[in-house]
């Protein structure tokens, strides 16, 4: 199998353009609904979430918990607008998301719920209460960390490669981040999937992986340019991509294998975390092969450096001696 990606680049760019457009539309729709590009979870929006499980050792677990019953209890506390979800096998657990409750309100609500639906298992309870300050903090610190790592990556790649490699690697990376965010925007709109702070962790991982992937291909292209300065950049990029293709596929495959294991068997909390990473990694492999490399070829061609041997600003060898 030999790919002529630089000749088909408008095709690959079109695909990415359409996916990015869909992502942006999803985020715009989310923005109109939630004032945020994604459906914000508890961590960002603030509030209190109670995840309660009926204790079947003591309680009557004959029938699933009735959401209507839970809702009427919430109404007596002035919390009608809360989100209620009954889940678990046989519907024995219920998750209630409300505005941020203080200690007394939370205690009253729990007692009221316990009276209505029966004793709860305190061993399997999860209660999270997040004030608005924390949400903002999580968001800004995540964003700041992201920007600083971008800057670090650009500096390192400019030193080891050249500035155009570095900038284009970041372009490919933004592509992957946007695709993942777009998918979660749509998941939020259609399936009510919320993003929490783990999603930020996932995005950051995608950043790491995406650059990783791009760097391996760029490394190969750089080597080819050094060995064959007389060849056209399009051919060198095609060669570089084809030489690293089986590596790209195998690495993405093995990483996605472990992540699939988490999606299938992992705990509830980690499922969407792993899904986000799978999307990001697949997109990362795609963008490294079809976007980052074609952009590099296009840019070199446009800036008159298509053939390294001819240009005045010949590729400076960065530290290493070329190997023959």
């Amino acid at each position, binding site marked *: 199998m030999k790919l002529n990606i630089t000749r088909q680049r408008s095709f690959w760019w079109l695909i990415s353009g359409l996916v990015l457009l869909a992502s942006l539309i999803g985020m715009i729709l989310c923005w109109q609904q939630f004032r945020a590009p994604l459906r914000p979870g508890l961590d960002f929006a603030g509030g209190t979430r109670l995840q309660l499980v009926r204790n079947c050792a003591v309680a009557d677990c004959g029938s699933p918990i009735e959401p209507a019953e839970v809702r009427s209890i919430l109404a007596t506390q002035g919390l009608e607008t809360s989100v209620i979800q009954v889940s678990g096998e046989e519907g024995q657990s219920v998750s209630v998301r409300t505005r941020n409750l203080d200690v007394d309100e939370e205690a009253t609500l729990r007692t009221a719920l316990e009276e209505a639906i029966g004793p709860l*298992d305190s061993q399997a309870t*999860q209660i*999270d209460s997040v004030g608005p300050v924390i949400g903002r903090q999580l968001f800004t610190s995540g964003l700041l*960390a992201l920007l600083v790592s971008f800057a670090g990556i650009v500096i390192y*790649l400019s030193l080891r490669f050249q500035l155009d490699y570095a900038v284009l690697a970041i372009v490919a990376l933004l592509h992957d981040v946007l695709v993942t965010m777009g998918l979660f925007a749509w998941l939020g709109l259609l399936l009510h999937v919320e993003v929490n702070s783990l999603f930020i962790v996932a995005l*950051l991982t995608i950043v790491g992986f995406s650059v990783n992937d791009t760097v391996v291909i760029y490394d190969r292209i750089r080597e080819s340019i050094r060995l064959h300065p007389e060849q056209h950049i399009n051919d060198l990029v095609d060669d570089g991509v084809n030489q690293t293709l089986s590596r790209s596929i195998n690495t993405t495959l093995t*990483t996605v294998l472990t992540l699939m294991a988490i999606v299938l068997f*992992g705990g509830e909390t980690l499922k969407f975390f792993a899904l986000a990473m799978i999307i990001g990694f697949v997109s990362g492999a795609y963008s490294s092969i079809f976007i980052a490399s074609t952009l590099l070829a296009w840019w070199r061609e446009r800036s008159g450096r298509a053939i390294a041997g001819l240009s005045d600003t010949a590729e400076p060898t960065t530290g290493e001696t070329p190997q023959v």
Partner: protein
Amino acid sequence: MGRQRLLLLLIFGLAIAAIVVISQVPTRLGLDLRGGTQLTLQIQPTEEIPVITDRDMEAVQRVISGRINELGVSETSVQQLGQNQLLVQLPGVSNPEQARRVLGETAQLEFRNQKPNTEQQFQIENQILQQHQVELSLLQRTSDVTSTDSSVTADETDAAGEGDQELQAVQQAIRDSNEAIADLFAPADLTGERLTDAYAQPFNNSNRWEVVIEFNAEGAALFSELSRNIAGTGRSIGIFLDDRLISAPTVDVQYADTGITGGGAVISGNFNAESANDLAIQLRGGALPLPVEVVETRTVGPTLGRDSIERSLYAAIAGLILVLIFMAVYYRLPGILADIALVVYALLTLAVFNLLGVTLTLPGIAGFILSIGIAVDANVLIFERTREELRSGRTLYRSVESGFDRAFSSILDSNVTTLIACVALFWLGAGLVKGFALTLGIGVLLSMFTAITCSRSLLLFTLGMPQFRKPELFCPGISTAPSKS
């Protein structure tokens, strides 16, 4: 070949050491895995104290630690987060509501007047309290040992449960003692707001230390009246922080006429530098009218935590096995050797986690799984390069050598960029992100080490044996003709 054998011995030794470390040093699990309550407290500035300094934070932290000690939980931790937040971790769900209530209060410091004719009773009660406190610290030490041990059997868990009951009994006894002692004192209207400062200083250049306290004008007047009443009677001034007695100095008879005037006083006694400083910090904490707000609480039930840890562990193991099978099938002999290197890698990484005391949380486990992916990637890069060299007709030995050499710059560049991201995340990220960045960063460093030393030595060592010196074991389908080396 001798060097290869030596390196292999070293790696083998490291792997054994790692197994010993994993079995001996307990893995620290985050609250999301073992269950418990985590609270984030925000210290609010006030009109009097618009900027919260490190000294203020230290004082507030001491107050919070004092309150946690009464909650009946072992292995608690209080950490400062940023400029004005404290992160409190309470493993095991004892009573999250109570914790939220107690920790969210503003500290209360009060100077009280000992009631007449309570001298003897005070001594007895104080002795009982001291005794209980010794018991408590002993119990906390032993329970720390049992409950962090990862290999607790059912019997030991029961014993730990009994230990917890004992712990709670002692804590109840301490609460009772504190109440009994508080009963012996009468309020004197002098509270922490009137205390302006407290600090420790050495006493006459000796090893002895004393604590200096300073009041504002109003406080000075109240204190001189209080000290005059007490002076020479043998009774003491009770200094209470959150209704717990933290010091009970007596006042010398020479102040019986005027009391201690001027707004300053010195508490001397059996202080060393540490205990004097501790009292000063407690006093300062009580002097701060800084409101504490609980801005975040997360409570995970213990079975819920155990459930997610088991599932994630199974998922990680299943994923790892799939990767091992894939490598062996696709890359043949080097794949199998890489599998050995990967297992060594996983052992080393877990051992380093335990040694460094890394707290494993769910994102931390994710970081670990991802680092396995990166470790695999390093091997894949090397083997792909080796195959290429073989196909271009080089000898087996040279192909393996240059496979490593040429893949190195890719491995280095891609891992350094990942490390840069890890450093940024660890430096700027909040809790979860930090844990993830740490495990991923450690994983990346170790994966480079094992890919370069372990995989390489294993491969070169295997090539030393003639029965393995066959290119088709490295690259199926290659013509064997040009590779007789």
